[in-house]
């Protein structure tokens, strides 16, 4: 069964979630991934959105993190103050999704500016809640497309800290969350060893050179780097028929 890059990313992102996790979900791939995990290996996943909905049970695909389907049938709804304080800062969230215009070798993310802060080439949306997710969640999962300008050795601006300057960087800065656990792109799945990004599996049809070419530094490959396992038919059917039947994000 053929599949798109997005579908593969959704499936890989879903596999990063564990049953019983409280996960801070965003719109698009993260939302599809969380809902896929909940319908497969993680029925007790608790989906939490930045808008304050706790244990959402969306009856249809949410189009923004404030979609009413995330509020209807949720277990609870917090104000912004409550969600960020009681859930994020208090360390109640196990996993969270992040994206961004740039991700660097140490998993730091830029979603603020390309170029100089005071005279930017491109003004990006800014942190939103990304900095607090990156700081306080136990495992962050980064999803992004894999292009050289998106993977510089060092980001132009650290919006959301990964491992900062590498080993011991998070401890030095007093960050309670564990930092980036996985980076999932349209080419590969990467993890972190000694606080540096390492390719763990490469998607079918992509080779090492492609990944290196699309990365702005000499990226390391794990000793046992494998071909990424493709989505199963069940996973694809769930994504296409139940989660995003109109193909909004696929």
């Amino acid at each position, binding site marked *: 069964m053929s599949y798109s890059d997005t579908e593969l990313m959704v499936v890989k992102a879903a596999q990063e979630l564990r049953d019983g996790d409280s996960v801070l979900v965003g719109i698009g791939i993260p939302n599809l991934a969380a809902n896929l995990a909940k319908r497969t290996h993680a029925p007790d996943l608790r989906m939490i959105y930045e808008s304050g909905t706790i244990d959402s049970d969306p009856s249809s695909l949410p189009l923004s993190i404030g979609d009413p389907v995330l509020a209807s049938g949720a277990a609870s709804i917090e104000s912004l103050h409550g969600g960020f304080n009681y859930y994020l800062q208090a360390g109640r969230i196990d996993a969270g999704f992040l994206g961004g215009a740039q991700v660097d070798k140490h998993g730091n993310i830029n979603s603020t500016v390309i170029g100089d802060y005071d005279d930017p080439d491109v003004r990006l949306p800014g942190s*939103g809640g990304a900095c607090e997710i990156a700081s306080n969640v136990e495992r962050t999962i980064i999803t992004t497309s894999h292009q050289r300008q998106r993977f510089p050795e060092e980001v132009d601006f650290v919006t959301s800290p990964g491992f*900062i300057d590498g080993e011991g960087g998070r401890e030095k800065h007093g*960050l309670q969350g564990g930092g980036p656990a996985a980076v999932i792109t349209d080419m590969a799945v990467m993890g972190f060893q000694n606080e540096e990004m390492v390719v763990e599996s490469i998607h079918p049809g992509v080779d090492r050179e492609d990944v290196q070419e699309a990365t702005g530094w000499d990226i390391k490959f794990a000793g046992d780097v494998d071909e990424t396992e493709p989505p199963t038919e069940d996973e694809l059917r769930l994504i296409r028929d139940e989660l995003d039947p109109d193909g909004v994000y696929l």
Partner: protein
Amino acid sequence: MSKVTSMKQAISTAISDGDSVYLAGFTHLIPFAAGHEIIRQEYTDLEVVRATPDLIYDQMIAAGCVGKVTFSWAGNPGVGSLRAFRRAIEDGVPNPIELEEYTHFGLVMRLYAGAVGLPFVPLKTFSGSDLPAENDNIRSVQSPFGDEEVYAVPPLNPDVAVVRGQRADENGNVHLWGIPGEHKEAALASDTVILSVEEIVDESVIRSDPNRTLVTADDIDYIVEEPYGSHPSYAQGYYDRDNDAYLNWDEVSQTHESTQEWLDEWVYSVADRDEYIRKLSSDRLLDLQTGNAYSEPINMGEN
């Protein structure tokens, strides 16, 4: 003297050029009608503050009302970037604007500090990020119990807040349900508060369920009854988000000129929210209707 008035009257009395203004609402119950009224009244040099300066601030920026934006995430939610916001920053069109930038948590905690009367509040974020270097209102503070350092932000007290809720009594005691965002903190932090609701109801409705009250009469200066006051955002239980409008804005705002044309048609040539809503096609309005799903009531007891 009744506080109940029109949005036109409320805005013109409450806001002056150069004021700091917070239109509250995080993804839900965004006061679009108030933003349009600000544009119609041709305010200038406002400091507009908002965690998510989405379409409504993009429109105010394009209309030349804004001198400064204090924010934490400037995008078209679920769609892309804010083109008028970017034109102002990247190209100074229609005028350059100053930025003051936070994370969501940072900005919400500034409002909270303002609402609770503290000179600062500590929070666990910003460490390891480049934001503190760009904003002198983000400073570190050491815990008086042990060595831990955390960041802190000072209070934010806007001159005017516009907040929304689904229903209020004519004194301004207001019920909000669904996603509450920062409506409460914005109301309690600001000097003057305009409340806009979908419905004004009898006081007994509000007092039948005091736990649902967002803020009370004492903190409300003007009350506007304005059905569909949040379109194309939504009001839980009243109407859904008009997603086509968000997608359409991405087209409309491609150039400054096309943006002006849209403002001419949908803001400047429209008298008020009622006329705006009547201008929408009935198909579109019908698409936004939600069915009914009532909460299980509670028993307060007959005391």
